[in-house]
């Protein structure tokens, strides 16, 4: 599953922070998750638990789900696509590569395919709390 790849990426990023900030212990990890990517949070959490190394055993993961916001470059309209409007195959493609949405989504106001993804793509590290 793709969630596993993202979990692996998150853990390797946290490990980099641990080293660069010379933290002895990590207490809390804030993770942002964009809605567009349609991550299965349960699988993602499970993958994190399976993959986390010893030094993350006591760390707590806090998740923040961020709603998708798209803005049309032609008419300026901002909108959030509704998941249930997309069929399964399209959702899966966007799940792997959120930018694929450019092949399937259109501005609901003017029909343009030229839009920016303002918010809600991908998975990112919001913050790390730890002890030196």
């Amino acid at each position, binding site marked *: 599953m793709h969630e596993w790849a993202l979990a*692996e990426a998150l853990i390797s*990023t946290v490990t980099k922070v641990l080293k660069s900030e010379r933290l002895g212990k990590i207490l809390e990890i804030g993770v942002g998750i964009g809605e567009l990517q349609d991550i299965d949070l349960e699988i993602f959490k499970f993958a994190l638990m399976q993959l986390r190394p010893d030094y993350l055993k006591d760390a707590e993961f806090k998740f923040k789900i961020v709603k998708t916001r798209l803005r049309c470059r032609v008419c300026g309209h901002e909108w959030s696509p509704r998941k249930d409007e997309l069929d399964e195959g399209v959702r899966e493609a966007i799940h792997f590569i959120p*930018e694929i949405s*450019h092949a399937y989504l259109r501005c609901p106001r003017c029909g343009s395919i030229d839009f*920016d993804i303002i918010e809600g793509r*991908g998975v990112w590290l919001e913050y790390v709390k*730890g002890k030196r």
Partner: protein
Amino acid sequence: MLRGSGERDLPIGWRDDVMSSELKDVRLSVIDERIKNVKNVIAVSSGKGGVGKSLVASALSLTLARRGYRVGLFDLDLTSPSTHIILDVGKSRPIEDRGIVPPRIHGISYMSITYYSEDKPTPLRGVDFSNALIELMAITRWGDLDFLIVDMPPGISDATLDIIRLIKRSKFLIVTTPSKLAFETVKKLIKLLSDLRVEIIGIVENMKIKESDFIKSNADKLGVKYLGGIEFDEGLEDALGDVEKFSKTEFFREVWRMAGELLRALASGAQ
């Protein structure tokens, strides 16, 4: 615990605003991991469009695979991919396994955005292009490879800069036509790569229609290895999508010969 001072035992907040963007984007730190067992990454590039990059990348991947090497082909032309047509990848699909594992086509591990975009136009502006590229690199598990061949889009913008930034050890194979118009752009790519200290493993002159040493002499002047010329091949069009036919073309034979030369060059000590 470390370094004494009580103050240091307090939880420290390591917030969004002080985080470098490189750390914030979790995908970047896993890219190296995904290609750590890939010995050589070769970007087939030009700057100029329509010069034969995709055909050279496809033929090179096939010849290396037939010589017994483990080869991956990554179509990075995200808006106008074409290697899936040249190789006729049919109904193959990547496998989901803790990321995605490229399917094997004609002995090559193959990855293209077309598995997800199908035949839909996928217009991508700069940031979106980079994001799609990073996403693909972060989730694709190439495994053990001797060569990962990357089919680059035309131009010297996002894809070129991203591949240099994200895969620091990429080597470039440059394709040009005999035309001074093509070479004008190619020269800029060579200059850019040299400035950034990126290795250029050679230059291929494609679609020759008459004898001329314009490209060779200029390549010599710039200190770039001239790998050879490929003639304009009328039979090539009929061979697109039929790998058996493609392997019998003059084009393919010429790339086969160049691959031999490349292998010798790479073996004789990383130039």
